[in-house]
């Protein structure tokens, strides 16, 4: 309990991951779903950083940088889609995002 091992980080990561998954599955607001995805990505990052520290290998940190870059790209495009969708249908309810064209 007092000695913190990568196992703890992994469990923390897994728990955060699960919270993210619940968010994606349960919420309807697309924006909150996107935020849940950010949580999932963060869970992964925690794992990577913890292992990078443990293994004394910078690859983990490098990957975190990439993940952040990807998250930025995802946020930009995803939010762009949300805005476009909102303009059309005035809703951000995921249940209504079913038509593929408008």
């Amino acid at each position, binding site marked *: 309990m*007092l*000695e*913190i091992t*990568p*196992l*703890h*980080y*992994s469990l*923390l990561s*897994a*728990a*955060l*991951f*699960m919270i*993210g998954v619940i968010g*994606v*599955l*349960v*919420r*309807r*607001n697309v*924006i*909150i779903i*996107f*935020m*849940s995805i*950010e*949580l999932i990505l*963060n869970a992964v*990052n*925690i794992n990577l*950083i*913890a*292992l*990078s*520290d*443990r*293994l*004394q*290998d*910078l*690859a983990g*940190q*490098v990957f*975190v*940088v990439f993940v*952040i870059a*990807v998250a930025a*790209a995802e946020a*930009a*495009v995803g*939010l*762009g889609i*949300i*805005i476009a969708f909102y*303009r059309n249908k005035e*809703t*951000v*309810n*995921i249940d209504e995002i079913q038509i593929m064209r408008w």
Partner: protein
Amino acid sequence: MAEAIVFWTLAVLILGLGVMVISARSAVHSVLFLVVNFLLVAVLYVTLNAEFVAVIQVLVYAGGIVVLYLFVVMLVNLKKAPERYADPRRIAWTGTLLAGAVLAEVIAIVYASVSSDEAGAAGGGFGADTPFAECGAGPLVSCNTEQLGWVLYTSYLIPFELASMLLLVAMVGAIVLAKRHL
């Protein structure tokens, strides 16, 4: 001892805020919790000797991406959250159960891997059989900004360039999507 206190505090806060993010009624509150969550994750990175990543986490994630979220939440200024006009419990249980299953699976895998190399594990964990396990004495990756730069621009140059291309594409895509009249 100190490390443990920090870790447990942070872990509890991070998870608690994570729950708040997905359970907050107002989307703006969600974003707010998300920011604090990311800041705490950044603190966690600092305890793991990853200052540069921590700063990037704050700068890009908390200062950039989440602001974007906030922006969109305000733009899509809804009187009622989508949950209000649909049955909220329709898939809530399924979703939670499903996520629980995922968690169980992940934990099982973690424990399986731990027990599989329990024999060689000094501190109990991964990679005890990797060559890096022995070189943990020196703080190789503390104050690592310069090293990180080296690695990023040498071994990971192509992924780095790819990431920049990705960002460029995403930028153009976002503008195309969001701009009304091009």
